[in-house]
């Protein structure tokens, strides 16, 4: 009797399993995945919660604000732009799982601005959008390897690479802080390794190097970092970590009354996040920072004015800062790419469009885009400035001095790029 009952139970379990697996009917394939007659669906993975999320979790709202603006003005060739956002908490294995969801469940046309060096690498290795023809647009990381078209055929960079940033930073240091003892705080993964490679190439040697494991940044651990920097006598310290790590470092340094010359990397230099973490604006004052977009306090700039307007209308109780500016700019470039992909966009036509016309897309940045059929490199330069007494980044002397370079052995040169005028109403034309 017992054996029979057991077998019955097994069968029941098996049936449940099979039924639950088989419930899905295979849907008919659309013309192109993620594209319908009325909508284009894009997907984004980034940390919305977790230790690395402060600052970056404002990006989806920024992108959505611009997309809504486009949709209100007729969309792209009659289609509305939709963004599906998944929280990966800056964890590579979660990024893989969420990207799978975007591709398999949400069936997005393309991945937009996924954030994180390690995350993007994991997704590339495991999910392999390149082999599946799925575009990964304008990755939100400066890892120099992603612009390698052979390795990542459907991936496009947009941010200047960390090697570029390190080289330009090295020039600034040689010009302004020659002979001083240098310290570096960097993340202990591919993101930090790329920076190290860049500094090595630029001939910078650090007297103190402190690596932190991603996710371990906090007030407690930052005390250990500061201890090492102080013991090593660092006079100029480069903070090349994520925003929350930068904030932890500055906050703890203030408490320990350790005040070297700070240089903030582009990834973590978000003043709003740092101030929101309780770091007094005085600590940021005179710290050095870099950006490739106009300063967000520069309301004479037409892009700043328009983007700020759009963003604050949609999010009246938020602050318009660099993360928002860069996010909206990426959305702007994306909209142009989708328009250039034609009236019946496909994944292939999207990629071809960026390669063909990408370098002529309008953008808010003060450096050019460099897309071509052989290159997936986006921006290639930075301007340097200092943080004001209120903690806002402003160009040195009020004038944008932009430098450009490459991720190889090319020299760092002053840029002569003149940014073209913004298209009417800031919409793709």
């Amino acid at each position, binding site marked *: 009797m017992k054996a029979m009952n057991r077998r019955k139970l097994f069968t029941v379990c098996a049936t449940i399993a099979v039924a639950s697996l088989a419930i899905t009917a295979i849907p008919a394939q659309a013309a192109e995945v993620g594209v319908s007659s009325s909508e284009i669906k894009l997907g984004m993975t980034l940390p919305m919660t977790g230790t690395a999320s402060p600052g970056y979790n404002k990006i989806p709202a920024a992108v959505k604000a611009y997309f809504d603006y486009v949709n209100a003005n007729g969309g792209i060739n009659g289609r509305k732009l939709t963004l599906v956002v998944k929280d990966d908490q800056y964890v590579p294995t979660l990024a893989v799982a969420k990207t799978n969801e975007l591709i398999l469940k949400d069936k997005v046309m393309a991945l937009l601005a996924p954030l994180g060096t390690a995350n993007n690498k994991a997704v590339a290795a495991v999910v392999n959008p390149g082999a599946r023809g799925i575009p990964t647009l304008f990755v939100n990381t400066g890892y120099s390897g992603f612009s390698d078209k052979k390795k990542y055929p459907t991936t496009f960079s947009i941010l200047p690479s960390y090697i570029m940033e390190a080289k330009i930073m090295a020039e600034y240091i040689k010009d302004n802080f020659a002979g001083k003892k240098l310290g570096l705080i960097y993340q202990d993964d591919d993101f930090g390794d790329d920076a190290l490679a860049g500094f090595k190439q630029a001939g910078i040697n650090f007297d103190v190097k402190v690596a*932190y494991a991603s996710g371990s940044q906090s*007030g407690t*651990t930052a005390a*250990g970092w500061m*201890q090492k920097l102080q013991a090593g006598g660092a006079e100029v310290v480069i903070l090349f970590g994520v925003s929350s790590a930068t904030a932890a470092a500055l906050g703890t340094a203030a408490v320990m*009354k350790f005040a070297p010359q700070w240089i903030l990397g582009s990834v973590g230099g978000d003043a709003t996040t740092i101030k929101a*973490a309780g770091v007094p604006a005085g600590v940021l004052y005179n710290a050095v920072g870099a950006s490739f977009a106009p300063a967000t306090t520069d309301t004479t700039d037409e892009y700043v004015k328009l983007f700020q307007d759009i963003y604050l209308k949609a999010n009246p109780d938020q602050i318009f800062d660099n993360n928002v500016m860069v996010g909206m700019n990426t959305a702007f470039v994306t909209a142009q790419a989708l328009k250039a992909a034609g009236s019946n966009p496909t994944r292939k036509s999207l990629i071809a469009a960026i390669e063909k016309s990408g370098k002529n897309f309008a953008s808010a940045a003060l450096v050019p885009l460099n897309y071509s059929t052989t290159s997936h490199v986006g921006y290639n330069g930075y301007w340097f400035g200092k943080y004001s007494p209120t903690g806002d980044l402003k160009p040195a002397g009020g004038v944008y001095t932009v430098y450009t370079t490459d991720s190889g052995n090319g020299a760092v040169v002053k840029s002569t790029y003149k940014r073209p005028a913004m298209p009417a109403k800031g919409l793709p034309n």
Partner: protein
Amino acid sequence: MFQLLNTILIGITAGAIYSLMAISIVLVWRSTRVINFAQAGMALLSTYFGYEAMVHFNSFWIALPVAMVGGAGIAALIELVFMRLLVKRSSTGPMAAVAPIIATLGLLGLIKGIISSIWGGADVRLVGPVTNVGYSIGDKTLAFSPLKLLTLCTIVALMLLLTVLFQKSNIGLSLRASAYSPEIARLSGVKVDFVRTLGWSLAGAAGAVAGMFQTVNGNGAFSPESIEFALLLISGFIAAVIGGLESLVGAVVGGLVLGLVISFVLMYISSSLFFIAPFVILLIILFVRPQGILGVKAARRA
């Protein structure tokens, strides 16, 4: 030399907080023979109560009692509703030993989820009443600040209060009696159920203080995902275990040992190893003395 002093100071302050957390775990264990894995979660929730009070009244000295009362209240609620039901339903069967552990773990997950739903997973900031900038000695800055001094004083005061309560008062005697022999205690006229709830409430209040100070001491940011919370969860628990679970003094010793070890590893070795340090200490202590530093060997139960 100076670095050594700083390391010790940081270790003692952190250790005091872990001790308080450990005390709350020991309190619950001694009054109901349950390891409450949700203790740190309850401390976190209490800290959020304190944060709300801070937002409305802008005073740490109002926020702290609010957190404590909130913590005690939550603890009492959980004991009354949850634990009684649990003990009734699963005191026999293969799950008897396992059920309370799993249930409190479930409670921890539930509390974290509720906190994230209400306040979000992003950091909230809690600012202490005095500055956290270290005292200066000549041109060097000590890793000891008015805030850390306040932390130590408050925690020491609380510990003394609890010790007096437990060892010298009638309530303390009732608490101890109810834990070891509830039937006999009942026969002696002790209101066992009330006393059990009281034990949980005290633990909740202690945990709230630990949570509040852990937040303000660590740059002021707190969230369910923060390292500070994970440290509180683990160190409080491990400190209780290595202290032997049987005495409050053991909890204090355990907390201080752990605080100092973590501090030394952080400052002298590497900031990525410090998370493993508590685990290593735990293994060493349990290997050498399975009942903890100050614990007594459990008699064979029938």
